[in-house]
């Protein structure tokens, strides 16, 4: 029997011109793992909320949603709460109580479960999710990934048959995201929980999924197994840019046969279709050397006197007008390095120079005037006003004039509340606000976090526009695909020191583990192919392998 079935659901928010969902019909069998993707604002969240009785949006709607054959709205309150689990995007805000064990108990308490049963379930779930060590902790002391695992566990403890997840990994770093998804897959296999997962970072998800649903402007535009859907998906569909690299490469070169979903698929089925007479693309002309905008020389930093060094002997420089991406694992000291350059923290040894002048010599907050600004990871903390226009005029009355060269049309955003913007729009509005202080060096902390592929592209265009105007950008990121496509140079930070630094092509083709999917796919066959565009260009130059039979 179908676990979840949508039948001809059409819905519109009051006072909206067009419906948010248009004639959506599909059904999921028990134990199916389905991924729902689509651009931001296409109605994914609304669709998920319709399946969760307690969160049903206040829309006028027609059509039905049923769970195990019964309309969702006719379910008894406790059944609906326990049988259908919902995990949202923001790890922090979903947590209710101030202890991990209490958070786990919360759902069962609401159902009036007995003490002894709750005790048993907590012990079981803590052991299943490997969270025994943090049971007595305060959730705010956990990492983002741990918080999201806690949210998943506190839903799973009620033994739901259906799990709805709204971009649960958007705020996590790639490692934590992969761990979360693996856990999800394990739940799906071990307990045959039906899963409907809305997601736009699809690289790791698609190979796990049984079903792929694609939404486009409120309607379901495709539904089927991932391979089926991806073979038929139009080249220029908005979701294409977010697909895993093997899929994009397959489509870009017009590969034949089955669509590869993972790196190993692509190495097995796609690459042998092409010859390798030309092994390498010509090296692009090197960027002319310019004066350094930011130099770190033997910088050491620690947060507490008795703590350990977060940065130890960090030495590198960023040239004026370049886009430098600093990558590395969690706790490698990336954000700390930015905070030092922004003057928020102070190194205990070593020198940092900004445009040739030592950072301590910028007195009376002059460092932040027409010189350096830091755009923090959580861009919401940049906004203080009720509209974007107020936000901008706060810093500069004549903001329209100052921003006339800003490489993005801000007009549609101006009357909106900053919190109502999408993630990508928030990033760009924050960038615009930051540009009003006329910085020559801009430090960005994880600007692509939580963005879908299109917003990411939009952001990249704005960043390139800024470097063209001579602004220097130092970007800290976990997003290696972004770094490979857009950086002038990349640096790898580990244990507080810079391990290597080079142009993306050389940098990623010399890395073995910390590198792009394309680089891992083409390794040994082509040299220096790190982006989909590189590989596609090489494969097209080479042409198909002639099979002599």
């Amino acid at each position: 029997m179908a676990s979840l079935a949508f039948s001809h659901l059409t819905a519109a928010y009051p006072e909206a011109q067009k419906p948010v969902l248009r004639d959506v019909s599909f059904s999921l069998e028990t134990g199916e793992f389905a991924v729902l993707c689509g651009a931001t604002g296409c109605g994914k969240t609304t669709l998920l909320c319709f399946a969760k009785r307690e969160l049903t949006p206040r829309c006028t709607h027609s059509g039905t949603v049923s769970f195990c054959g019964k309309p969702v709205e006719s379910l008894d309150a406790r059944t609906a709460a326990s049988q259908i689990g919902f995990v949202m995007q923001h790890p922090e805000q979903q947590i209710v109580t101030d202890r991990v064990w209490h958070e786990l108990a919360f759902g069962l308490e609401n159902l009036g479960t007995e003490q002894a049963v709750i005790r048993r379930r907590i012990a079981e779930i803590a052991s299943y999710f490997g969270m025994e060590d943090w049971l007595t902790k305060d959730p705010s002391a956990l990492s983002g990934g741990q918080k999201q695992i806690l949210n998943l566990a506190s839903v799973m403890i009620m033994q739901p048959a259906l799990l709805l997840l709204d971009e649960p990994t958007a705020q996590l770093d790639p490692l934590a995201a992969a761990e979360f998804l693996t856990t999800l897959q394990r739940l799906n296999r071990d307990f045959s929980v039906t899963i409907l997962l809305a997601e736009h970072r699809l690289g790791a998800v698609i190979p796990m999924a049984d079903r792929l649903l694609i939404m486009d402007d409120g309607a379901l535009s495709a539904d089927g197994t991932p391979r089926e859907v991806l073979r038929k998906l139009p080249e220029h569909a908005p979701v294409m840019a977010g697909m895993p690299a093997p899929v994009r490469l397959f489509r870009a070169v017009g590969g034949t046969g089955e669509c590869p979903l993972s790196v190993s698929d692509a190495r097995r089925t796609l690459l042998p279709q092409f010859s390798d007479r030309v092994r390498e693309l010509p090296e692009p002309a090197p960027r002319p050397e310019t004066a350094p905008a930011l130099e770190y020389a033997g910088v050491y930093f620690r947060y507490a006197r008795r703590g350990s060094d977060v940065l130890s002997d960090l030495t590198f420089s960023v040239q004026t007008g370049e886009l430098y991406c600093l990558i590395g694992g969690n706790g490698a000291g990336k954000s700390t390095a930015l905070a030092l350059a922004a003057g928020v923290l102070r190194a205990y040894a070593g020198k940092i120079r900004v445009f040739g002048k030592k950072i301590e010599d910028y007195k009376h907050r002059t460092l932040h005037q027409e010189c350096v600004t830091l755009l923090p990871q959580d861009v919401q903390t940049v906004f203080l006003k009720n509209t974007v226009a107020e936000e901008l005029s706060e810093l500069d009355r004549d903001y329209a004039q100052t921003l006339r060269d800003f490489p993005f049309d801000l007009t549609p955003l101006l009357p909106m509340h900053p919190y109502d913007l999408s993630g990508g729009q928030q990033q760009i509005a924050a960038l615009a606000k930051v540009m009003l202080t006329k910085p020559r060096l801009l430090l960005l902390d994880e600007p692509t976090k939580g963005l879908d592929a299109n917003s990411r592209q939009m952001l990249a265009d704005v960043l390139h526009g800024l470097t063209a105007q001579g602004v220097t950008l130092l970007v800290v990121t976990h997003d290696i695909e972004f770094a490979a496509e857009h950086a002038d140079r990349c640096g790898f930070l580990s244990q507080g020191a810079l391990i290597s630094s080079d142009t993306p092509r050389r940098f990623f083709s010399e890395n073995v583990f910390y590198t792009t999917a394309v680089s891992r796919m083409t390794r040994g066959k082509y040299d220096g192919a790190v982006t989909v565009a590189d590989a596609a260009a090489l494969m097209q130059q080479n042409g198909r392998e002639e099979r002599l039979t």
Partner: protein
Amino acid sequence: MRSFADMNPAAVTVHLLLTACITIFCMEPLLLGISLLCAVTFYLVKNGGANRGFHLFALGVPALFALLNPLWNQHGTTVLFVLNDRAVTAEALCYGAVTGIRLAAVLYWFRIFSELTDSEKLFYLFRFLSPRIAMVLSMAIRNLTLYREQMKKIRQSQKALGLYREAHLIDDIRGGVRIFSVLLTWALENGIITANSMTARGYGTGRRSSYTTFRWHMRDAVLLGVSLVLAAVCIRSAAAGAMHWEFYPVCDAPPHGLLWFAGVGAYLLLSLLPLIYEGKEALTWHRLRSRI
């Protein structure tokens, strides 16, 4: 090894409150002496030589009080000497000393209570009053942490943005006001998500149960029962006036009758209970460990 702190917080709290309250309301020097001695010993057993500052405070302030009382207080008949035309009496000195001991004993008992009780135990105690209040308190604490962190983040990012243009006090205050107002907006947005997460997990679907990590064991019941019985004896004796000293105009001790013996004896046992329990557990542990 188990310790007194691992007993059920409800039993521990009842015991400590009874011990402290009897100290507050009794005016029998021997009982107060016992109370102070037991409290200090237990505190030393648990903490060793640490927290010298607290000892200095808890013993110093009452001592000062005892010395100063005769200077203000002119009651009493036995004049010891005259200072600045004011008579210093033996009765006032005694009264000061006894009140000082009482104050010190109470300070030690409350300090012991606060060291044995963390926030989690406090919530457990609140549940007895109302599970709903305990839940709200737990959420409030969580939100306060969140707000404090967000405030710090906003301030830091505004600083790095150069929002405060000059090193100006007025500018700093204005910045603070703006940050506070945006924090309210953020708190509301944040609250909606939390509320959704709560209803999604069935909050408000009917009668709730209230889970705690603390359990009742036989030993907790014994502690509670013994404490109540001993305190009852003590209170009965105090109510009959068997343990009430008069200091003015002359020191006057009540007769040492059966009630007096019962009262002081019961109190001795009551305030020794934590030490007895620790001692018994230490012995058990020693015996068990010798078998390993």
